[in-house]
């Protein structure tokens, strides 16, 4: 039983952590940036956002094929259905250029999030 209790304690702590996170998140000013995907090109290809603030990236896919919005450095990976729209949360970043791409067309479809 001891091990079982330990496990439920861990699960409980995790659940509590999730709970606390979802409700106590401070109302920070979030920077929203929208990118569209058409003919397998991002537009704008190099959106600019301020450093040190949480970011929400909205991706609208105007193509008739699905894509997967992905970035190693932004740490995101999300499928965007044909004609669909998704958004991803990105942590506050230090200045620099962060590459993102369509995982299904990585050679041709890329852009950079410019953080200043």
């Amino acid at each position: 039983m001891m091990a079982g209790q330990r496990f439920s304690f861990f699960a409980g702590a995790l659940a509590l952590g999730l709970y606390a996170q979802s409700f106590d998140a401070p109302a920070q000013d979030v920077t929203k940036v929208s990118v569209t995907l058409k003919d397998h090109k991002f537009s704008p290809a190099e959106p600019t956002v301020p450093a040190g603030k949480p970011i929400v990236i909205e991706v609208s896919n105007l193509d008739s094929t699905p894509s997967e919005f992905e970035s190693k450095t932004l740490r995101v990976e999300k499928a965007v259905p044909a004609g669909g729209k998704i958004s991803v949360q990105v942590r506050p970043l230090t200045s620099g250029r962060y590459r993102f791409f369509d995982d299904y067309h990585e050679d041709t479809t890329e852009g950079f999030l410019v953080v200043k």
Partner: protein
Amino acid sequence: MLGALIIVFREVIEAGLIVGIVLAVTKGLAGSRLAIAVGVLAGVVGASLVAAFAGAIGEALAGVGQEVFNALILFIAVVMLTWHNVWMASHGRELAADVKRVGEAVRSGSQSIFALGVVCAVAVMREGSEVALFMYGLLAAGGSTTTELMIGSLLGLAAGVAVTALTYLGLVAIPQRRLFAVTTALISLLAAGLAAQAVLFLQQAGILTMLSQTAWDTSAVLSDTSLFGRVLHTLVGYSDQPSVLQVVAYCATLAVIVVLTKTVGSRRAAAVKARRAAAG
């Protein structure tokens, strides 16, 4: 064609490795082959459904449905792998030590096999849904290159099956005595890596926002998108730019599995010893 092959292969490596490991772990256990086959099939069906309803899933839960769904199935895999390891720690020893208890052990063994069947199903479903989405896209795009791209995709899938076979053959070549220790370690690391991936999805959804800083950046040394990086990513959870929270989740999961395995394992061993002493 080569492009499609590579994209599909990249997605199926992880599921291929996991199924290969599970096949090796359950080698010789009655009913395990059926459980794995059903698991993989269920995963393929699930993947197709997930891809077909990608839009609806993505829009669910205020736009974070995709992340929550991914995190959830990864956590299911973590729990199932943990369960299996703990079961092996307790019954594997007992099985060897006390023949009279084998009947009972085999019965609970089928539960452990079920757990691993579920692991195969969720691994195939998660990775496969991206492949299915990609292939849907090819069909939707149409045009003269579609056939060629589809052939490339199918070859990519075949290469994924080859990874399963290689993993299995590589593992079963290990002497039986050591195989148990190797697979226990492999499954623990695999589970920890999956937990870290699940956390990443919750961070992307904005559900977990703490400890989002990058713990280290080894992308210049070994990118986790390279072939070797991908294999390591699955096997031991390697990531070239993990967040601090991912590292915490990895260590916590590993610690929980080790503690559970040791406690349950040693308690069982003591119980078996006591029973033998009473009988003798």
